[in-house]
């Protein structure tokens, strides 16, 4: 039982990183922009978080700083892809290289140091006494409530039950139709791409402020890419993105447990699990969910720059 509780607790913790980044990417892709720079954004968020907390001893400020740096880089990316309309794949890759490289350069001074202050778990009285689930669900740090409850529920509501959300989704489906209907395609794309990038930065901050919690050169380890894959798996929905993150957290947790308990599998192979899992996550659904194509389909104009004034 202890094992299961531990597994679940770690699953939520580990999954939080992916869930937050994936939710952010959902926002960007729903308005039609693929942001492959999530990995770089997370790296910058991570290093900013650790740098801020070292200076201010406040994990909240650290998280805020991570969000801000994500938004800043995100705005640059949005400028290139939405205003200039440069190739989204290239800009995303560039962002990953820039973010990763820059973060590693800045992070040299913080390598290996544990964060001086982290997000402590908030214990919900009563509920956290529930056997097995209690500790995992009700004894986590505040960010997890944000990531698994507030953001998915709030964003789902806005996207699917409000006028603004309908307009926003139309931008990703058919920007020409949205434009002709009077919706500002550029403004909406810019806003949501930046917001999504902010969340990606925040996910990086979460990594160094709540999960690991320290900085090292390879701390992001491809999680940004996994988050992008999870968006596809989640059918471009915030709620499903959070759940997918959790599922992935479970896989990661299994890997940890295996290492801790000395399972006869080399740690390197256990570390491979998340990546192989991602591969499965993007291939299997396409084959298995042929009927669900419509509900899980990508926004029709995903990845295409929108030109109004060009023949």
């Amino acid at each position, binding site marked *: 039982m202890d094992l299961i509780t531990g597994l679940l607790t770690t699953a939520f913790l580990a999954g939080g990183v992916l869930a937050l980044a994936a939710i952010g990417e959902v926002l960007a892709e729903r308005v039609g922009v693929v942001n492959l720079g999530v990995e770089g954004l997370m790296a910058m968020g991570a290093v900013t978080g650790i740098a801020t907390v070292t200076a201010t001893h406040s994990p909240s400020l650290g998280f805020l700083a991570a969000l801000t740096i994500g938004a800043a880089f995100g705005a640059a990316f949005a400028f290139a892809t939405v205003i200039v309309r440069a190739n989204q794949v290239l800009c995303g890759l560039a962002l990953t290289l820039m973010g990763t490289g820059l973060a590693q350069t800045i992070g040299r001074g913080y390598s290996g140091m544990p964060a001086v202050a982290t997000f402590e778990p908030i214990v919900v009285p009563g509920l956290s006494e529930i056997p097995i689930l209690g500790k995992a669900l009700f004894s986590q740090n505040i960010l997890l409530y944000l990531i698994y409850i507030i953001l998915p529920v709030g964003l789902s509501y806005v996207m699917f039950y409000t006028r603004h959300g309908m307009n926003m989704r139309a931008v990703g489906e058919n920007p020409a139709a949205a434009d002709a*209907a009077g919706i500002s395609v550029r403004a909406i794309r810019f806003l949501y791409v930046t917001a999504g990038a902010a969340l990606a930065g925040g996910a990086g901050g979460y990594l160094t402020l709540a999960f690991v919690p320290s900085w090292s050169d390879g701390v992001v380890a491809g999680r940004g890419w996994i988050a992008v894959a999870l968006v596809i798996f989640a059918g471009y929905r915030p709620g499903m993105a959070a759940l997918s993150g959790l599922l992935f957290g479970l896989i990661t947790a299994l890997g940890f447990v295996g290492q801790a308990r000395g399972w006869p599998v080399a740690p390197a192979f256990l570390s491979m699990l998340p990546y192989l899992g991602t591969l499965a996550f993007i291939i299997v659904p396409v084959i298995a969910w042929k009927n669900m194509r419509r509900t899980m389909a990508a926004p029709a104009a995903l990845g295409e720059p929108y030109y109004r*004034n060009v023949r």
Partner: protein
Amino acid sequence: MQDENASTTSTPGTPPRVYLKGICKYFPGVIANENVDIEVLPGEIHALLGENGAGKSTLMNILTGIYQPDAGEIIIDGYSKQFASPIQAIAAGIGMVHQHFKLVQAFTVAENIHLGWDETPKRVSASVLEARTAELAKSFNLDVKPGARVSDLSTGEQQRVEILRVLSRRARILILDEPTAVLTPAEARELFRALREFVSHGNSVIFISHKLDEVLEISDRISILRQGRKIATEQAADCDPRKLAKLMVGRDIVLDDMRGRGAGAKPKSAESVLKVSGLSALGDNGLTALRDLNFSLRAGEILGVAGVAGNGQRELSQVLTGVRPASAGEIIIDGKPMAGMKAGDFAAAGIGHIPEDRLHSGLAPAMSIITNAVMREYAKPPVARGGFFSRDAAARLAREIAGAADVAIPDFAMPIRNLSGGNQQRLVARREMRIAERILVAAYPSRGLDVGAINTMLRYIVELRDAGAGVILISEELEELLNLSDRIAVLYEGRIMGILENDQLDIDEIGLMMGGRSRIRAGEAA
């Protein structure tokens, strides 16, 4: 025709509802609009007539705020307006139903109606939106299904959704861009009735078309555009098709009946060069697109295929050229069954294909003119010998085709998308004619071309027919089909409703078949 519009003719001195003054718009290498002056009066149906590329759509895109004019003024009800974006035009009471609908395919009808509308409630639920849509539909007397997904609707139904969307924004100036391309003759008449009702309340309609008869039937006044300039504005009552055609093109145009054969033409063969029996095929969405087709084609004959776009024409042209597999039935060419054959085999059998969407299927826009020109013959000598591809031979072939197509090309290595649509189509046509020894399948070959280019295209087809090939001509222009075909088949929902000999045909009968009514039992003689 004019008598029914008695209530709409305005008294002299009425200020125009829309005054486009001196509008200019330029694109790379193209003058889209030059000094265009057009006035639209309240209660008027005003037609904008011109060939493809005359600047009609551009002008309307300016009026609706999608483009900004490079010079000139837009004056609505006496006030000068500037539309930096569509929402400002919508606020001024202007609504446009585009030729290519601006609908979100994945959304329902109700969602599309309420898109970008500040009267949409802030909280949105399917039931609320659908109820509101039903009410709106009733008030404007338009039949739509609020809960249906747009991608499931027919083009006629989608057009009604577009119209409802525009009307519900309280448009007083309704612009329609080539609306009847996707309608049967009966549906078109229904649309005209709705438009007359609309203007009877003092609203205005701008009707863009290149169809002379239609324009004469529906409009009060007609403005003719040619090469970006306005040539004239006439009262419809003072015009006839010949006069309009001349204004449209700038010279006398005789729309030929090309069915007669000249001296050197090969006669129709006795045996069929193509025989199709029980042919069925699935569309991209997995549903049946063609059902149990039976017809044959003789060498030296033109078989026209009429029907509203979207009834299986695309799938038919693909199945007959091996791009799409048949799900049932047989295709026999020169006595040889083509079961299981692919596109390359069909081409080798002497079948050419002018595809419906040349940029998507017939060309690689980003690649050079040479690469595109040799697309059908790249595997044969002289272009290819052994496994090797000779760039010189390819360039020579490209020059030959360009010469036959009479297209002046400054640089054969440049991407083919730099050429105009008409030039691209001519190159594709001549490229296909070279390999179409037995059959040419031409799908909407004149779409998007101006009258001069259309005439050239049709002459190519006749040339091919006289050389002894059989031609299947799929077109949405009934006049074109009547002028060229020996027989006409009508396609509706993937079925052939009937095949008629083209002598003294009754247009209404074809119209009925296009709309799914009436079927001729005796369809086919082998």
